[in-house]
């Protein structure tokens, strides 16, 4: 089992590449929801039916090759520990719901680069996810369509001419597509401009939320912007709208950063260096404080104030310091205060590495 490489590394291989606008956009994601036309949806399907789908997916695709030697690892949820599930969630490779359904035939199929992950028997039979670094929605969509076509060679999808791809939840019907962009917006948050912009963004049928999806709070000034509407518009149109809003946010964020530097440069610098100090020297650190400091340090890197640390530190330490990862690292369950100690020591260790 080569599961370990998904679990041990906090940073997915694709994150090492720099995408366009990667000073502000961390990643672009396309998610497609698909179902088998003959089977009842996972919500009410019995175990036998779900097992059947799981086996079908494993037999037909797990050993297959999708373009340029893209191979997959097939991971039934019931075969891995809850800490391992948690790590996959923290890396955004699976959803919390998939982990919850481990007894009901839930499984994941993940490509070696972790760019593509397929959730099986989550809310829908098949959920395809593709990640690209930086702002690359069109490229991600193109790849997602190719992958979708690859699956479609063997799956008879539930599709209706007038309603499109049929999904368990009416909020996904039509394209079944949720496109989202993960953005680091510290200056817009500091200057409280983002709160004022959110209602306007919502009016365009787009949603702004925290990095761990629906209902999650924002940590580390990271936001996920995604489309809400899936019916009545083509995938390309949806992406175009999302992209144009993201471009505007990038522009505003850059301006806000510039203005902050001009008007209160020393204050900003102080804030950045204090955060770096906290990360380099603290012995106990809560996840919220760590996220806040990491966000400031990343801003410092982007502004050229901090030079010796790589940009990826934010993505990497953000995941590495989540509870699941810490416990996987410690190889035991940890209480909150124990996690805070381990978190501080891991961050110190990681920053030491950068200095070499």
């Amino acid at each position, binding site marked *: 089992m080569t599961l370990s490489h998904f679990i041990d590394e906090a940073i997915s291989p694709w994150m090492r590449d720099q995408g366009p606008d990667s000073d502000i956009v961390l990643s672009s994601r396309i998610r497609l929801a698909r179902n088998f036309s003959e089977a009842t*949806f996972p919500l009410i399907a019995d175990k036998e039916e779900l097992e059947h789908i799981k086996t079908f997916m494993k037999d037909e695709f797990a050993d297959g090759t999708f373009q340029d030697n893209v191979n997959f690892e097939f991971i039934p949820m019931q075969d891995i520990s809850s800490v391992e599930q948690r790590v996959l969630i923290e890396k955004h490779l699976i959803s919390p719901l998939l982990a919850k359904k481990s007894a009901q035939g839930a499984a994941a199929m993940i490509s070696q680069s972790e760019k593509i992950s397929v959730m099986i028997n989550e809310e829908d039979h098949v959920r395809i996810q593709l990640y690209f670094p930086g702002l690359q929605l069109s490229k991600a969509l193109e790849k997602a369509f190719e992958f979708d076509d690859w699956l479609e060679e063997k799956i008879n999808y539930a599709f209706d001419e007038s309603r*499109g791809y049929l999904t368990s939840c009416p909020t996904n019907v*039509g394209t079944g597509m949720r496109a989202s962009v993960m953005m680091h917006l510290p200056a817009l948050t500091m200057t409280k401009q983002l709160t004022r912009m959110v209602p306007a963004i919502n009016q365009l049928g787009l949603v702004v939320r925290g990095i761990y999806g629906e209902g999650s709070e924002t940590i580390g000034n990271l936001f996920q912007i995604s489309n809400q509407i899936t019916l009545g518009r083509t995938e390309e149109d949806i992406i175009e709208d999302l992209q144009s809003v993201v471009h505007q946010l990038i522009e505003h964020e850059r301006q806000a950063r510039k203005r902050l530097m001009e008007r209160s440069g020393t204050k900003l610098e102080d804030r950045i260096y204090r955060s770096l100090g906290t990360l380099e020297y603290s012995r106990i650190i809560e996840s919220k404080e760590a996220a806040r400091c990491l966000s400031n340090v990343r801003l410092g890197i982007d502004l050229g104030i901090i030079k010796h640390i790589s940009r990826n530190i934010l993505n990497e330490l953000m995941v590495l310091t989540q509870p699941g990862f810490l416990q996987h690292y410690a190889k035991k369950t940890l209480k909150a205060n124990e996690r805070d100690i381990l978190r501080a020591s891991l961050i110190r260790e990681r920053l030491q590495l950068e200095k070499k």
Partner: protein
Amino acid sequence: MECQECHKRPATLHFTQVINGNKTEVHVCEVCAKEKGYMSFPDEAYTLHNLITGLFDFDSSINPQKKAHLKQSKELQCPKCEMTFSDFKRLGKFGCAECYNTFSSKLDPVFRRVHSGNTLHHGKIPKRKGGHLHLKKELDSLRIELQSLIKNEEFEKAATIRDQIKDLEQTIKNKEEGEAE
């Protein structure tokens, strides 16, 4: 007025209970109401899901008596997964692909609310299911293009498009005949 259960906190909930014809007035605080089961509070916070299921309840304009009557007479039920329309409203999720057919007549208002007024799919079509559906969509967009070219008096371009439409129509016709055989 103090809470009649704990006698500490002020009573914030006041209601009349009728059990077997006996009327009793109840004055309690929120904490006791929760503890003594006077009120049921949902376990989870109000989620987007709750909000959406609320939206499905578009029958509420019909008066309750009539509604009850309607329910008794004919409750829609999916022949495949046995989900009823009230199940769907409660769960906010479909049971299977066939549900979309079964509840079809009632879905437009649902989709309109969730998808900003849209009820029909525009977008990707599965290749093998689509067959010539793909081509038909292409044909539609070419026709629209043709109209706008004519409107703008770009006749040369329009002529090219017109030829493309003709070719496409022929291809579709051939395919359909091929399938019929």
